[in-house]
């Protein structure tokens, strides 16, 4: 983040206050989410956010591997974030690097906070995030997709986690950094947020910010997260859009659990 000198002809914010792609400081890139896009995984989601293309899949709760990590009281949420070799400009060697390991860890931690892990002792809930095309903000898009995939898999949670970043470019606080802004900007604040409880479950920052700038930025990120949440919710509702429902579906009741014979 930051430090990369801006080429002479690149103006991150122009005279009318617009960014390189025409956005205003508080405008987000276009975001599309589809839930339930994979046939094998228990839950899945596909996110297109700006030029990012990210797939998330969930398996579980299932038997915990490796066994020595099993927790007798709760489920483990294990996330693996990975970038495809062709997802970036300069081909990336396949396999996780240190950056992927770190992102996997912080996303696992963010999701652990909202999943009712105590309902599934000794199991693992495995979350996979694949970046197919990267264009800044992949960890936020990945966490956003992972939350939807978890819900799609029927995993009980206190809420969805929405994620969005804010940053500083040319001394201006903006939301949802694009690739150039990420390369040439002055600060980056990725945020993972639980809209219902207003909890912050993922937070990183790098760059150079005054207290006021940070305060402004994190609030912009929170607003961004609230917008992301609406798209997540909509994707899940659309996935199971029902025309109408027969009244004879019994809910998860005790007394109906016998007549299988």
């Amino acid at each position, binding site marked *: 983040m930051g430090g990369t000198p801006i080429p002479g002809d690149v103006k991150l914010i122009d005279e009318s206050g617009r960014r390189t792609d025409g956005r205003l400081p508080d405008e987000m890139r276009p975001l599309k989410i589809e839930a339930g896009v994979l046939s*094998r995984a228990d839950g899945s989601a596909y996110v297109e956010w700006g030029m990012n293309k990210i797939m*998330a899949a969930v398996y579980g709760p299932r038997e915990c591997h490796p066994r020595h990590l099993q927790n007798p009281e709760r489920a483990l949420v294990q996330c693996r974030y990975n970038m495809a070799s062709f997802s970036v400009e300069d081909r990336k060697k396949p396999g996780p690097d240190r950056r992927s390991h770190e992102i996997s860890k912080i996303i696992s931690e963010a999701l652990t906070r909202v999943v009712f892990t105590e309902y599934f002792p000794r199991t693992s809930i495995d979350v996979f995030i694949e970046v*197919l095309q990267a264009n800044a903000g992949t960890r936020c898009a990945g966490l956003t997709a992972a939350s939807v995939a978890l819900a799609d898999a029927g995993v009980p949670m206190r809420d969805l986690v929405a994620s969005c970043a804010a940053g500083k470019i040319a001394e201006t606080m903006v939301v949802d950094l694009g690739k150039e802004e990420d390369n040439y900007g002055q600060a980056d604040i990725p945020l993972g947020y639980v809209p219902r409880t207003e909890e912050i479950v993922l937070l990183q920052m790098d760059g150079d910010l005054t207290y006021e700038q940070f305060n402004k930025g994190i609030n912009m990120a929170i607003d961004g997260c609230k917008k992301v949440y609406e798209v997540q919710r909509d994707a899940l509702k659309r996935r199971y859009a029902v025309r109408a429902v027969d009244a004879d579906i019994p809910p998860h009741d005790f007394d109906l659990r016998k007549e299988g014979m």
Partner: protein
Amino acid sequence: MSKDVMADLKRDHISKLLAKGVRMDGRKFEEMRPLKIEPSYVGSAEGSARVTLGNTQVVVGVKLILGEPFADTPNTGVLTTNAELIPMASETFESGPPDQESIEVARVVDRGIREGHAVDLEKLCIVPGKEVWIMFVDVHVLDYDGNLFDAANIGANAAFKSAVVPAGKAGKGEDYPLPVKHQPISVTAVKIDGKLLIDPTHDEERVADARLTVATNEIGNLCAMQKGLNGSFTLDEVLKIVDLSRSIGADVRARL
């Protein structure tokens, strides 16, 4: 564990249906599943395609970078194929370095496109003996329901068709389309209870005795073959599959 447990249980089901001339998903023995090809799927790659074959989904990306040629082929570009069978695609895939399965997929796909001369590698030479384009073909499996060989092969062919050599960015002149010479298409069959089934699903692959992948080109010549699994084929069965591959391959080629 549980989904794999069911695979064995399905063997009986599959056999009983085959005896009546029907496959589990209702297809005829020589029928392929619905095929969807989306070229230029990923903008960050020089060429790409997403292929959906039934429930199997793969993304193939082509990246080109400058490098040195191999000593024994100083005038040709370098082609290298890799396949990632990522855990997202199946509960039976584990993360980690490529295992035998993903290596076999990569090598069989590579054999098809290399021996089939899909790309004119000589046109990827910039300075003989010194500088050539290195072409990476990366197969990324997202959803696994059998027949990665064909899905990946189709993806590679589709990716090549729309790929662009990034000469401009590398200061080597202007960008130009990847020099595609042929379109070797692979068709895979499995044998279950003596019956030959084209384009197997995962359930079918699991219970099959033997598997054969055949790659053919536009004039119906064979470029590559690979037999897999622990059973065997008779010569007649092999020739029948080769025959089917030529005609089905032509149909698929027309869809690119």
